[in-house]
């Protein structure tokens, strides 16, 4: 399944600045692995060492939070729009 992935500002350094990329996978897990193949280093920013989505990162499929679906095992359909949304804070200095 080819899907579109929106890349948040903090992860654009892995995608050469692209704010949206195409990637594939039948599940979120496979998609993240495909992203890692294409953009080495990105997986570590999305998943923790056990392979789960990090607690300060959310992944949405067509606007639905995968935590309320089947998490990493959530199935993807051709053309789905995936958003990766990390918490952002800012900095005072």
């Amino acid at each position, binding site marked *: 399944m080819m899907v579109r992935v929106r890349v*948040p*500002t*903090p992860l654009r350094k892995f995608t050469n600045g692209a*704010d949206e990329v195409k990637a594939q996978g039948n599940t979120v897990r496979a998609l993240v692995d495909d992203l890692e193949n294409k953009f080495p280093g990105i997986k570590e920013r999305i998943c923790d060492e056990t392979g789960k989505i*990090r*607690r*300060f*990162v*959310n992944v*949405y499929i067509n*606007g*639905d*939070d995968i935590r*309320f679906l089947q998490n990493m095992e959530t199935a993807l359909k051709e053309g789905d729009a995936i*958003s990766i*949304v*990390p*918490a*952002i*804070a*800012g*900095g*005072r*200095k």
Partner: protein
Amino acid sequence: MTLRLTPEQIERYSRQIMIPDVGGKGQIRVRQGRVLVIGAGGLGSPAAFYLAAAGIGTLGLVDYDRVELSNLQRQILHFTEDVGRQKVASAEEKLNRLNPEVEIRTLAVRLEERNATEILAAYDFIVDGSDNFATKFLVNDAAVALGKPFSHAGIVRLQGQTMTVIPGKSACYRCLFKGPPPPGEILSCQQAGILGAVAGTIGSIQATEAIKFFAGMEDDLLTDRLLIYDAKTLSFRTIEVQRDLGCAACGRKKGIKSTTAESSVEAGKPGS
């Protein structure tokens, strides 16, 4: 309490009083409103500016920091001659000049677990303009525990996020994100940068939400939605946020008795 607007107030606030959603009644409520702005920095500056201009009754400002030259690119309450000054003193002076009828209360302290409840309790609405995750989770947990509505926001580079929380009714920040990243995991503005005008856009939205809350538009707030602003592509989008019944702050199994001990390392650095 009955309150009337003076002819001078009617003139000063005429452009917002004439908005049917505000009106004289809404303006009187704004005049009675008490807002706490956490951080007199990139987000807190525009938020406090617009709140004072709109005639908010009481405006509290918490920031322990002093003005630095690198702040001036976005922290519009502070001017060149303020470098080295306490941010809250600099902010108070400007806000008094803008609108002397707003009661400004300044607190040059660090917002921490031990004082958060006491500080937040005296206000009706909180604008979180802090710059670090520890403070953001601290504000969330304290505001949720007290039942105080608040506006959350974060900014980095050309992107901003904001969401309004009505405790007990809408999803809280911890429903959205379970907890803060480990310190150093995510770039700060100091490392990543921020465009001043992006902070201005998001801080202005925070002020808008506070004014709407008082003026009678409390059912039309940015609740259960995270607004994501990307200035690079100039796009705004919202993501639906669901209340998490297992949320440690506002869910059925509340696990957070005190606030964010897990990340006190960088706690209490307001200012963005």
